[in-house]
């Protein structure tokens, strides 16, 4: 399932995938894989991303049952 919330939060801060990746010490491909839904990050990485984007875990990673962002 694509993580459109993450992508939207990143875009709202005008950050590229590379810039976000550098901020949380991962590769750009890892951020890309998370946004495409190909990789489920650990809680540690989720928290690091939340801190950089100024969002909560719920706002970025909680999936509602009727979430249709596939």
């Amino acid at each position, binding site marked *: 399932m694509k993580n459109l919330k993450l992508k939207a939060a990143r875009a709202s801060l005008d950050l590229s*995938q590379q810039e976000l990746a550098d901020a949380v010490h991962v590769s750009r491909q890892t951020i890309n894989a998370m946004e*495409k839904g190909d990789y489920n990050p650990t809680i540690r990485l989720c928290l690091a991303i939340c801190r950089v984007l100024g969002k909560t875990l719920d706002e970025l990673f909680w999936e509602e049952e009727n979430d249709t962002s596939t």
Partner: protein
Amino acid sequence: MNAEMWGFLTGLVVSLAAVCTDSWVKRRKQKKEGVDWDDSFDERQKLARGKAYGSALFTLAAYLVINAVVSQAAGPWAQPGVDSVMGIFPATGVFAVQCICGDAFITLREKPRTYLFLFGMTAVVQILAAATSFHEGTIMTDGLADWKLLSPVCGVLFLVLFGAMLLKMRRDRNGDGEEA
């Protein structure tokens, strides 16, 4: 021990010394910059490398079984030791290609171009060494593959890695799903 074996042994020792020195220099540099050694690969890369290690182990096991069956059925095809050592190449190839395709071969700080150059150079050197051996007719001894057969096989391996890295770099340059 003959001169040829001394040559192999020297090559082995020099290669190991080069790898150890490179590792030591990198570790020292990272310590100086205050970077944790484990930060070299991110969590997704570590996971991908773990899977690649599994595939490489399976490849090595499969090679050893097939080699044993073939050697039993048709008799030995290589000098003692050569056939076993040969198994390192397909296993390494599977590991490296899987890592390259999964963006898990190089660390966050390394540049793919360095590896492209290294792979290309190694392939050229090994193929040149193989060409010399073919010219001298020393690839086979008494109808059995000699240690010198490792050079062309190694050359082919690094040629494959060179191609995989080149394709990966081209794919990355073309975007690879980067969506601002």
